């Protein structure tokens, strides 16, 4: 794990640099340099999201597990990443603006509690998705032709549970922009960051499909066993996260 931890530490120090660069740049924004500076900020926000999601968490495990247990194409993994990005950007914006304007000064006091609760909600959702996928795999074991339709539904379920709980990192950027009266830039930054994160998550999905392809098709008749196994792992992951967040 030596390499993995070195990588993580490097990722953290890059995020630290990007984070301070974004804040200084947003603060220096004025009428004369607004367009080019805004574009620069969005570019950095994208990179920030890309790297931020490369750290642990952010639904990569969920997406990876889903694709290791379901036959799928790279295109689908890519689509999944972006579905998550869209859901994530929307939820981050709704949550941040909502909480900011409703609670205003109470925001920060609740911010940490909120992150904790958000984590619990997402863990419960992952458990629910796991249960749903088990049910679906079991019921669908004899109906191969219906597979396409049902697979779409479960993909949305996975994307929803991975994306619906906003990342505090994105919320912080949005909130920072709101405080500095750069509302539009805040919205665009959340979108840019979410796209970056979506790309990283897509890559996790693509990697797990690649791994899956290598393991062959020997289970093609009894594919549902594999699906149930994957769903069980997702369920375990959800329970694991739930206990971790309750501690």
């Amino acid at each position, binding site marked *: 794990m030596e390499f993995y931890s070195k990588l993580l530490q490097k990722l953290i120090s890059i995020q630290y640099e990007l984070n*301070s660069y974004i804040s*200084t740049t947003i603060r220096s924004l004025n009428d004369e340099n607004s367009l080019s500076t805004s574009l620069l900020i969005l570019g950095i926000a994208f990179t920030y999201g890309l790297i931020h999601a490369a750290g*642990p968490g952010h639904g990569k495990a969920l997406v990876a597990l889903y694709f290791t247990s379901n036959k799928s194409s790279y295109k689908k993994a890519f689509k999944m990443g972006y579905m998550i990005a869209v859901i994530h950007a929307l939820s981050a914006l709704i949550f941040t603006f909502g909480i900011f304007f409703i609670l205003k000064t109470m925001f920060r006091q609740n911010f940490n509690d909120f992150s904790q609760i958000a984590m619990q909600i997402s863990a419960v959702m992952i458990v629910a998705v796991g249960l749903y996928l088990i049910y679906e795999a079991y019921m669908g074991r004899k109906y191969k032709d219906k597979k396409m339709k049902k697979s779409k539904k479960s993909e949305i379920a996975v994307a929803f549970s991975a994306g619906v709980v906003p990342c505090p990192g994105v919320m912080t950027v949005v909130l920072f922009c709101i405080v500095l009266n750069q509302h539009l830039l805040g919205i665009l930054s959340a979108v840019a960051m979410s796209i970056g994160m979506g790309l990283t998550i897509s890559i*996790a999905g693509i990697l797990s499909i690649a791994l899956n392809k290598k393991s062959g098709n020997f289970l093609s008749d009894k594919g549902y066993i594999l699906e149930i196994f994957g769903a069980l792992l997702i369920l375990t992951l959800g329970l694991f996260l739930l206990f971790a967040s309750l501690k």
Partner: protein
Amino acid sequence: MKKLLVFLLFTISLFAHPHTFIEVHPTIKVVDGAIKTIHFKWKLDEMTSTILIMELDKNADGKIDKKESAYIRDNYFIILKDYSYYTHIKVKGKLIKFPTPKKFIATIENHKICYSFSLDEKYIAKDTIFEFGDTDFYTAMILKKEFVEISGAKAKVSGVDNDFYYGYRLEIK
């Protein structure tokens, strides 16, 4: 087996990734091989600071006065005791309890909230190692060589991986 591998690879550190960055600026005075004074200044990242200032600078004068500083100490700083103030002190390789920080004061510098505090303990310099990191990984502690101000000895800064957190190590030679 492969699935187990993927599972482990992606979940090892759970939801952990930093959202707050804190620069650690230590000032250390060493006399005759003993640490005489240790002073820490934490600089919170600008984004977190901006959000905190919104709430904590109650009279919104852009400064943190005595009352506001005491409020921050009681409500934001002291609770970090549970996390050993993200600072892990090892004496002769053994982790010791973090002493109660003294002379806490919060200020705003360049849009950043700064926490300053001192430790009263007298450590033998060569036996003592400071490690900075959040075991929960929510906060990233950043230590760079140029942040350290030291007299009477030399400081060495390196990265450290303690299985459950990544951080920086400060050794005094």
